[in-house]
């Protein structure tokens, strides 16, 4: 409608139509900017408030300081919680990556009776809400008179991480070119040599990705942890209990630190991949 009028009356395109045209062409860019703004608002907020000179309750902006970054353990509870989360995360990652990778090789590389049942058993924990996983495991521990705490939490994390490891590693195995292994066999490598020198190095990036995923799932888990950790405080648990009265700014420092660390790992990983591809 407005375009018709514009064409008929004035030879130069009016500003509104110009904007409309620009908008039409760049709609997808505008959308991406908006979407990423939405995604990054809480991250930016967390980062900004890590510089807040706020004392104990980090609710209102009180002034800029670097103290929180210089001394992230200034609120000791935060560092204890972080240490627990890292310990639990590393143990859960090691066990779930080993168990999950073995399952992935069995399902991805072998034909056997019960393969679809195996797939179902891997899918079920992912389709079960976390609260059910957490609550059911706690009732099992209670039956056997095991007190919730550090090891029950590790066990719980291994349990829910296995499926994600299997899915990630299996996808990598499925994308392998079977001719590479055949070539190794043709060159008189035995089964073990083929696995060690050809298959494993090719699957390794998938295993590394799965381990990173397992660690971040474990590190960030709250619901299952809350049910099985008893008096052990993990980082998410600390944030949850502190949320009501305001979290110390040091928690924001650690959250932002994790963000930059993970970003660095991902970018480094991409860089290595690209160099390998060349």
């Amino acid at each position: 409608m407005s375009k018709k009028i514009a064409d008929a009356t004035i030879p130069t395109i009016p500003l509104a139509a110009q904007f409309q045209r620009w908008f039409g062409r760049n709609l997808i860019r505008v959308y991406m900017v908006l979407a990423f703004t939405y995604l990054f608002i809480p991250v930016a907020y967390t980062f900004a408030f890590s510089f807040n000179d706020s004392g104990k309750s980090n609710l209102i902006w009180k002034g800029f300081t670097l103290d929180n970054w210089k001394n992230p353990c200034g609120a000791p509870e935060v560092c204890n919680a972080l240490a627990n989360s890292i310990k639990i995360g590393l143990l859960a990652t090691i066990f779930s990556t080993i168990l999950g990778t073995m399952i992935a090789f069995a399902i991805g590389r072998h034909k056997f009776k019960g393969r679809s049942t195996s797939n179902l058993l891997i899918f079920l924990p992912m389709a079960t809400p976390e609260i059910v996983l957490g609550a059911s495991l706690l009732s099992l521990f209670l039956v056997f008179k095991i007190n919730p705490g550090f090891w029950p939490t590790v066990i719980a994390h291994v349990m829910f991480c296995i499926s994600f490891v299997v899915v990630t590693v299996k996808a990598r195995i499925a994308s392998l070119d079977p001719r590479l292994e055949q070539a190794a066999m043709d060159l008189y490598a035995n089964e073990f040599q083929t696995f060690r020198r050809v298959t494993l190095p090719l699957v390794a990036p998938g295993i590394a990705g799965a381990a990173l995923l397992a660690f971040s799932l474990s590190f960030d888990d709250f619901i299952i942890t809350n049910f099985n950790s008893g008096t052990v405080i993990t980082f998410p648990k600390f944030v949850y209990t502190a949320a009501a009265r305001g979290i110390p700014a040091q928690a924001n420092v650690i959250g932002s630190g994790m963000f930059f660390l993970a970003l660095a790992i991902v970018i480094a990983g991409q860089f290595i991949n690209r160099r390998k591809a060349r």
Partner: protein
Amino acid sequence: MGKIRTPYLLLLPGFGFLFVFFILPILNLAQTSTQTPVGGGDTGQYEQTFRFQNYIDAFVENKEQFGRSFVYALIATLLALAISYPLAYAIAFKSGKYKNFFLVLVVAPFFTSFLLRTVAWKQILGEEGFVVPTLRSVGIISESTTLTSTAFAVVMGMTYNFLPFMTLPLFASIDRIDPRTLEASGDLYANGFTTFRKVTLPLSMPGVVAGTLLTFIPAAGDYVNAAILGSPNTKMIGNVIESRYFKIVDYPTAAALSFTLMAAILILVTVYIRKAGTEELV
């Protein structure tokens, strides 16, 4: 001989673990759900009486929270789909050599702790945040309206927190679409909308199914968003199960509720997968 045994040996440790710490707990949960308090016993002491009435009592007492969980989760899933689809499409088709960079950007926010992000939303949407005063001065919301402790905040928090579970599978399946199929559709005089409806959308269905499931399942069982961003009026079934366990020590009701939630989700998922016609999810 060894060859036949290999897969089973590989499966044994992992499946043994899952049997003890996933299957057994679920069975135990089923058992707990029909127990009743020991007459004259302490709080938290229960005996097996196979009282299936527990299920009906638990459901009737908490049907409101059940309904809310499914409605909130459904709205959050649809919102996440609406936000993620154009984003995944743009990254797959319009970002050229920056594809990986944008993918990292989608995941990056989720490296900051889930809890910290939710608390950040609470403060951003709170009275001291910048959103509420801005909206008030423009006159979009009235002086008395608040954004936190509302259903809006809970649903928004869930949409935000589960967004990558939607975007990544969507991207994976849209990225696999051969752009030539879209060109072919255009050559056959389909306009943009028809191409989307008849070519892009059907080809991206596996991503839509996987994404909606990966968002809906955790959202329906979530209680963190409702606890941090909501009020007693926005309690979801997760909040009820949590308080039954820890505050009231009513294990049978908590177990019955957990089991009902799991069964409801499994039935929904099965029906949905059947309807969508994609069996290969794992």
